[in-house]
């Protein structure tokens, strides 16, 4: 077990180093001269060399990479040109909004996707099964930003069922003090139920759009895991024993797919981070994805690389988490 853990942590360190190496290379190929962007076009002679030395750009590449890694590990991603604040502070500020959105979307995906996948597997080739297949196809074929836009058109502009872009209506802005940064939680802590209702009206559409994709993935995997289990002999034995179909499915088969399912849910959370970049842009949701695209469009490389590293690190973390969960939950891997 210890040796496995050592191997695992070794590979994690290597992957994180690789992640930093890739972002470092991306940061190097930018056609923008980082020195010029600091001192401006009309700097006096000599200033260019001084600024270059200050930024450490006169050092050999491996020294620069070492500094880059040291800084990144301590959370120093430089100063954002866009907000004139350290990138790490910006990331801390926008992070809770994304977590809130992705968590709610995952909740939707799990609560609807798992039961739907189970029913689709048990009632193979019925309308439920076809619905599950269509959902899976939608998850693979429809652009998330387009669904978001069409959702805004129908449910906000035409029907008026939900709030518009952003996290809150203007009338509710800055009423509830920021504690966790997650608007629903903050409203709950403050006991302000009017603000809570408003925040909910705003989050429900983006969370549903993201949740649809999470739902498609989770449902498809649940269905195929379940079909595989239901064809096994112990299921036949349980049925012969006279157990009710409910006990067979929920008591025996579901228990056996629980472990791979947990892994799938952890991975789907990672995919949501990707989907959130486009969704947050459509819904003007002030999260990590929106910060990343804002930085991109203004060529703020510090913001872009910081955001990329953080998202990559979360992705690696989620993969690690699903790996550890698998080992903890599945007795065969002990």
């Amino acid at each position: 077990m210890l040796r496995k853990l050592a191997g695992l942590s070794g590979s994690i360190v290597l992957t994180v180093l690789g992640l930093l190496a890739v972002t470092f290379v991306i940061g190097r190929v930018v056609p923008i001269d980082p020195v010029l962007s600091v001192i401006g076009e009309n700097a006096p002679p000599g200033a260019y060399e001084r600024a270059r030395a200050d930024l450490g750009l006169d050092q050999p590449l491996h020294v620069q990479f070492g500094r880059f890694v040291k800084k990144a590990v301590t959370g120093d991603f430089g100063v954002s040109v866009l907000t004139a604040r350290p990138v790490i502070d910006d990331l801390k500020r926008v992070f809770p909004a994304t977590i809130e959105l992705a968590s709610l979307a995952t909740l939707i995906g799990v609560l609807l996707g798992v039961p739907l996948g189970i029913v689709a597997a048990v009632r193979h080739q019925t309308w439920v099964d076809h619905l599950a297949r269509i959902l899976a196809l939608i998850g693979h074929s429809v652009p998330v930003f387009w669904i978001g836009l069409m959702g805004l058109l129908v449910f906000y502009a035409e029907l008026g069922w939900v709030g518009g872009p952003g996290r809150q209506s203007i009338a509710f802005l800055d009423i509830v003090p920021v504690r966790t940064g997650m608007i629903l939680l903050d409203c709950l802590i403050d006991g302000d139920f009017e603000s809570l209702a408003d925040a909910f009206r705003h989050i429900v559409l983006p969370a549903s759009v993201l949740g649809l994709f999470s739902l498609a993935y989770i449902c498809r995997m649940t269905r195929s895991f379940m079909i595989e289990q239901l064809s096994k002999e112990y299921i036949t034995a349980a049925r012969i024993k006279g157990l009710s179909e409910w006990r067979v499915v929920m008591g025996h088969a579901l228990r056996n797919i629980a472990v791979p399912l947990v892994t799938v849910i952890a991975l789907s959370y990672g995919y949501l981070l990707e989907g959130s970049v486009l969704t947050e842009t459509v819904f003007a949701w002030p999260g990590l994805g929106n910060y990343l695209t804002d930085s991109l469009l203004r060529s703020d490389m510090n913001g872009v690389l910081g955001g990329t590293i953080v998202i990559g690190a979360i992705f690696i973390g989620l993969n690690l988490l699903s790996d550890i969960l698998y080992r903890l939950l599945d007795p065969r891997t002990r």
Partner: protein
Amino acid sequence: MSGAASTLRDYLTTPTPRSRRHAALQRAWLAWRRLRNNPTAMAGLGIIVLIVLVAAFAPWIATHSPFEQNLNNRLAPPSAAHWLGTDEFGRDVYSRLVYGSRVALRIIGLVTVITGPIGLLIGAIAGYAGGWVDAALMRITDIFLAFPRLILALALTSALGPNIDNAILAIGITGWPPLARLARAETLTIRASDFIAAARVIGASATRIVVGHVMPLCMPSLIVRLTLDMAGVILIAAGLGFLGLGAQPPQPEWGAMIAAGRKFVFDQWWIAAIPGIAICVLSLGFNLFGDGLRDALDPKTHS
């Protein structure tokens, strides 16, 4: 006519193929027969063929130039003159949609040309060589897999400069790792088989075995994966276009068209809605066809 057809059929179904090409053609014929009996796969193929035809004959199918502006007739609703209305510069949305198929297919084609060979080569070499070569190549693959694909493509495109060629390059660079994984897994099973041992005993070089024996056998599963991947490529390219990092105006790229229509979505909804439908249809075509291809080429897997 019927005589010629029956000899062709005999050629394709005779139990004793006389050459390698003969055997390969027979296998392809069998796969096609299986595919033909799969209605959803044929529907997918139909969609793809249709869009390829639209792209090929775009100048004849479009009613206007995709670039021709008419500021007196901007944001017009669908009419007899402009079947799907006009955009914010008075350009014909239908014609831009038609020409957009060329952009989409070009992206798909070029990305596939980048990802396929890289994935196959890295996977086959890693799987066949084993040892530290395998460990090193798979470590690099894992690093690329550690990024969500869109995020890496975003960062790359923004670094290289936002235009369609860089977007294609970025999508290609982010696309090969899953293919390499797949090719490696295939290679590991092929490597253990007797005919590879026989080839080695005869004295065939490693290069010859990998290129001549291993790679051709990796092809079926790789083709299936590439086809399914094309749907993902369309979505990522559209996402980059939507964020303004892919095709630049006035190129009629579907994702960028949605981005342009976004400003008017509450009043002139069709400008944003219609390119999205085109993306869905093309992506659906590749998904359906890819699923059918998987069943046809690899009867082992059944979902």
